[in-house]
């Protein structure tokens, strides 16, 4: 892959094939942790951090361990364990050495283990036969797309707080409808194709 192709792939991963609005990976944190822009940004940054790292580690483990021992069918188990261990490790590392970052991201880290965006980014890179650099770039770009989606949506939800919907629509249904409208806006990107 040339640099241009790499950049186009990243651009596509951020906007066209946005993890939330076109693939539905990571909808739980998207709907759960998007009440305030600050927390949404924190969650997005934590996901970006973990997703890029876990993409790199899972690629290495898959290519050098699972493939060479013909254990590729174990990739789901292996990847989720790696992600869980990595999240635990990052949490301990940040608490010890970078307390400032830990206080910003700490509360989101445990939630990320069961964030399907992280697992699916790792699995997708394997599925698409990406090399190491491409995997890292793809995971980073997908995570940026996730961050973009969750921060924009948090901005919408701040406005929604002042709305006065019918009783049946209060809370979750209204959130979903707003997400639907935002998804419509994002589907405008689907006409752009870089492949």
């Amino acid at each position, binding site marked *: 892959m040339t640099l241009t192709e790499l950049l186009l792939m990243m651009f596509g991963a951020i906007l066209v094939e946005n993890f939330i*609005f*076109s*693939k*539905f*990976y*990571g*909808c*739980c944190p998207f*709907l759960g942790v998007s009440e305030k822009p600050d927390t949404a940004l924190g969650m997005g940054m934590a996901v970006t951090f973990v997703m890029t790292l876990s993409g790199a580690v899972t690629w290495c483990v898959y290519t050098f361990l699972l493939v060479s021992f013909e254990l590729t*069918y*174990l*990739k*789901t*188990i292996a990847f*989720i*364990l790696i992600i*869980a261990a990595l999240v635990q490790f990052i949490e301990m590392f940040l608490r010890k050495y970078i307390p400032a970052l830990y206080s910003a991201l700490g509360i989101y880290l445990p939630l990320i*283990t*069961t*964030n*399907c965006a992280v*697992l*699916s980014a790792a*699995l*997708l890179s394997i*599925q698409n036969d990406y090399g190491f650099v491409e995997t890292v770039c793809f995971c980073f770009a997908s995570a940026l797309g996730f961050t973009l989606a969750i921060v924009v949506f948090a901005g919408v939800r701040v406005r929604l707080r002042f709305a006065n919907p019918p*009783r*049946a*629509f*209060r*809370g*979750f*249904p*209204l*959130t*979903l*409808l707003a*997400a*639907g*409208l935002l*998804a*419509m806006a994002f*589907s405008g990107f689907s006409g752009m194709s870089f492949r």
Partner: protein
Amino acid sequence: MSTKYSFGKQIREGLFENNPVLVQLLGMCPTLAVTTSITNALGMGLAATAVLICSNFLISLLRKFIPKQVRIAAYIVIISGFVTAIELLMKAYFYDLYGSLGLFIPLIVVNCIILARAEAFASRNPVIPSIMDGVAMGLGFTFALVLLGAVRELLGAGTLFGFAVLGSRYQPALLFIQPPGAFLTLGLLIAAVQKIRNVMKDKKKAAKQNAQKKSENAGEEEQA
């Protein structure tokens, strides 16, 4: 629990009163993603149900041996083991479905419903109720998925299970099959569920107030 155990009540809770998707609002990713057709929805629901039953069974069996500190990791290993088994089975026997569900089969591992039931039910209850809880919650999940899949397929393609239902004059509203339609349909569906629950709650309240008034009236009449 063990003295007054009733399977019917568990099923009713899983399907309606405590439906994992429509009431507890768990497991949004597969719910939104695979409900483009009723077949996909049914396949996903049953696959997740199978995993849920197996994982509830094993976790309940091992609940006295799994140390508290590492329980989540242990649950994830158990769940992902079963997910891998289901994935291989589907690849062997239902290849079309396997193809159309794609990445969402391995993603059953991180489905919050399964982990939530392991943590909230299977780790605290005996084996038989845990299996039944898996059946009930799995059916509730499948029910919600099929409902959503039916609405989306009917409006978005004019078909059900791939058969044309609405006739050739119906212009399919493609939006409902596309990603935005998933959010909109689920939002409307949950709003409908909340409406029903509100009406039921109001009725219960009104009945209670009526009963109170009656008893007060009766008391006053007695005093008089």
